[in-house]
């Protein structure tokens, strides 16, 4: 067999010529082309697609793709302090094991009978998130945390009938872009300024902008800059006094130590589940959650699927199904019906596995460790000459701002130098948060040991010297 000779492709069982002939005969067609009789000549391509020559042997395919991927440097080969919405956490082997199971990986949209396992796994995911968030209703995952925030804002708009929503000015530029693109037909989005001394929400600015037209304020905790929004009780009080809802946009990996939005008095919680057992995957490991209390007024506004538990004809069996809110007397969703589609279910199942492995103690220890290491990193970096930690007085978890203005060096240059030392420095903030100047957002999680943080401090000192 030599190169270029046509062989039967392993993905195509019915291309064995004898089989094809027999099938064509059976349906009375002379050639396969007869089956395209409905497509007029004017619409036919009439030539082969101009694509690269195929690699039909698996060995060559692997070699080709691995050859491309080998041009990448993974965060396992360097010391990475990148976060900004995509986080380096330890992914338990059991998480990869379960989401690699062929049944879970290749199932789709069967009924709660032949896909019972999938329904139960997603119900359990929602249930575990419900405990973490202290809320009774959690959706089957939507695409990502940006979508969850955007959808939560539109839900608030529909529930209150008001046209304005508020978001913090410190929100990531990308998240704001997504939110605007999505809510524009329904809502006006206004930013609430942050206090430049603390990076937290400026409460005076909030008071000034809250009026009877605000449907909701979206509060990030921790903020995009890693600070714990300790003013949450006051923010909620102000919002409620104006008749506005509060949406708590949170990082679930921090909820072992931070109070969930329900405890603040927020009506809606949202966020991204990537930190709960998903590899970073170049940004391909995201899933969004939305949670509320079990009030039909709120349940009616979810565009995502909600799975409920149900009895079966046999006592002791659990069944599941879609909660069909459209069929209730509360179904008055004439306006702005959203859509349901393929999103991130397997990541939801994975997050369930993660939470089951971690349990309450694991989540608490995770939060404690992350806060301690973050604070340690802030302390060590503050000791580097010229480096300032502008918001050191605030509580932080997972991320903090490092200001290099006093060093006279750009973040770009410092990052390049650190990269040469095998370290990925934090995300550049100068472009999206100009008021922070030459600053970086450094991320520290449970995967960064003391030695790693010490090495960052030492290397930074070296580079800046």
């Amino acid at each position, binding site marked *: 067999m030599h190169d270029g000779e046509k062989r039967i492709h392993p993905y195509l069982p019915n291309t064995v010529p004898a089989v094809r002939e027999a099938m064509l005969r059976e349906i009375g067609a002379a050639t396969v082309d007869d089956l395209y009789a409905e497509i007029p000549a004017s619409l036919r391509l009439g030539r082969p697609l101009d694509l690269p020559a195929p690699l039909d042997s698996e060995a060559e395919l692997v070699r080709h793709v691995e050859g491309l991927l080998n041009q990448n440097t993974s965060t396992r080969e360097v010391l990475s302090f990148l976060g900004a919405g995509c986080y380096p956490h330890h992914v338990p082997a059991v998480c990869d094991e379960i989401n690699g199971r062929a049944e879970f990986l290749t199932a789709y*949209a*069967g*009924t*709660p*009978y032949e896909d019972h396992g999938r329904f139960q796994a997603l119900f359990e995911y929602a249930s575990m998130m419900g405990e973490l968030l202290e809320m009774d209703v959690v959706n089957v995952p939507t695409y990502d945390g940006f979508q969850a925030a955007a959808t939560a804002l539109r839900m608030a708009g529909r529930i209150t009938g008001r046209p304005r929503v508020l978001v913090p000015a410190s929100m990531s530029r990308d998240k704001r872009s997504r939110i605007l693109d999505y809510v524009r037909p329904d809502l006006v989005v206004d930013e609430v300024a942050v206090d430049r001394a603390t990076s937290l929400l400026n409460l005076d600015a909030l008071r000034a902008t809250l009026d009877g037209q605000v449907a909701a304020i979206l509060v990030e905790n921790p903020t995009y800059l890693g600070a714990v929004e300790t003013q949450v009780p006051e923010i909620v009080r102000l919002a409620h006094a104006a008749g506005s809802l509060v949406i708590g946009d949170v990082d679930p990996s921090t909820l072992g130590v931070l109070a969930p939005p329900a405890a603040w008095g927020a009506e809606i919680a949202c966020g991204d589940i990537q930190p709960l057992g998903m590899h970073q995957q170049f940004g391909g490991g995201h899933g969004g959650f939305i949670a509320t209390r079990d009030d039909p007024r709120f349940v009616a506004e979810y*565009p995502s*699927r909600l799975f409920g538990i149900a009895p079966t004809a046999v006592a002791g069996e659990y069944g599941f*199904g*879609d909660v*069909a809110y*459209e*069929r209730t007397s509360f*179904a*008055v*969703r*004439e*306006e702005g*019906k959203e*859509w*349901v*589609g393929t999103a991130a279910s397997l990541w939801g199942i994975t997050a369930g596995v993660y939470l089951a492995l971690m349990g309450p103690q694991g989540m608490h220890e995770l939060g404690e460790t992350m806060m301690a290491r973050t604070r340690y990193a802030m302390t060590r970096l503050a000791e580097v000459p010229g480096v300032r930690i502008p918001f050191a007085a605030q509580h932080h978890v997972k991320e903090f701002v490092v200001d290099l203005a006093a060093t006279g060096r750009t973040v770009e240059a410092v990052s390049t130098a650190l990269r040469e030392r095998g370290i990925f420095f934090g995300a550049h903030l100068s472009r999206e948060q100009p008021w922070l100047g030459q600053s970086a957002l450094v991320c520290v999680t449970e995967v960064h040991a003391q030695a790693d943080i010490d090495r960052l401090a030492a290397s930074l000192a070296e580079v800046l010297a």
Partner: protein
Amino acid sequence: MTGPRAALVVNPIAGIGGRVGLAGSDGAEIVAEALSRGAIPHANDRAVGALEALRTRWGAARPVPALLAAPGEMGADAARRAGFEPLVVGALGRGSTTAADTQRLAGELIAAGLDLLLFAGGDGTARDICGVAGAPGVAVLGIPAGVKIQSAVFATSPAAAGDLAAAFLALPPGRRRTSQREVLDLDEAAYRRGELAPRLFGELAVPEAGRWLQARKAPSPASEAAAARAIGAEVAAHLVAGTRYVLGPGSTLRSIGERLGVAKTLVGVDVVELDAAGRPGLVASDVGAARLAALVEGCPAGVVVTPIGGQGFLFGRGNQQIGPDVLRAILARSGRDAIIVVATPAKLAALGGRPFLVDTGDVALDRELAGYLRVVTGRSEHATYRVEPA
């Protein structure tokens, strides 16, 4: 009330005219004429057939539903023949049975408490039942046993009626779905003269076949009521101030009325007007053709209709009051856009690709209306659909 309860009322002379060439059986003279021609009443046999199918479908695994019945030949006889032990409700009057008996006994059955009322008869019997069971909450299903069975409240056969009844009763109460079906009023005298002019008499809540769990990739459809409300919201949002609107019959139109805050009749044609500020007010209720023509003369006007009767008639079935002169006046002043058709997506889908039909009585007008019309199907949801002369 533990298990499900069904009830049966039979119009024993329904269908009696058919076999002997009489159209219908309304009126004592017609019945006497039929009997003298040797007609044999079959309604009870049909009721038995339905009940037997109900037993078969119900199966032997659990006790059969409790069955209430009107006395004797109006229900209990058929119930016993089908192997039930009916709880008899009410008493028969003297002499042969009349429509008044049907109404009275049906009313007493409903008062006794039931989950489903089965009746054996034809369109006339359906109208009688409609008089007492038209209120929402009472599920009704017709066992076809009349000559004229145009109303959509009947099953396709006695066996199908028994089948559907069993499926409906087997569902837990919260899962039982009904949909509003039209009861038509056929003018029998006109029919016998060769003229056909059905009108909408009322609506009954008829069981929908239960939908078991199905694989879902998209959200489940809105309930019929929710769809009607959505249509109401969309229409209400686009009515023009300073305009009079003729609102045709049907429950979808009644939803629009509710949205506007006016008391729209279910089966009649009503006129509402939006003042200069856009506030809606009822101008006239259940109007006839002549008054309607006068009401739309000389002012901006529009008409809102939904197809009546299952065959997709926009004009000419169930809303003949909206005569050709009314339509011409509206078209002349405001154009085709003034004709607003409303229909739920399910109703359009059920047409299976067949067009809307118009039979205004003015053939030239029918041809003018033919083509395509915009249909409101939900909030911010429209369709364009074909219209043809009948």
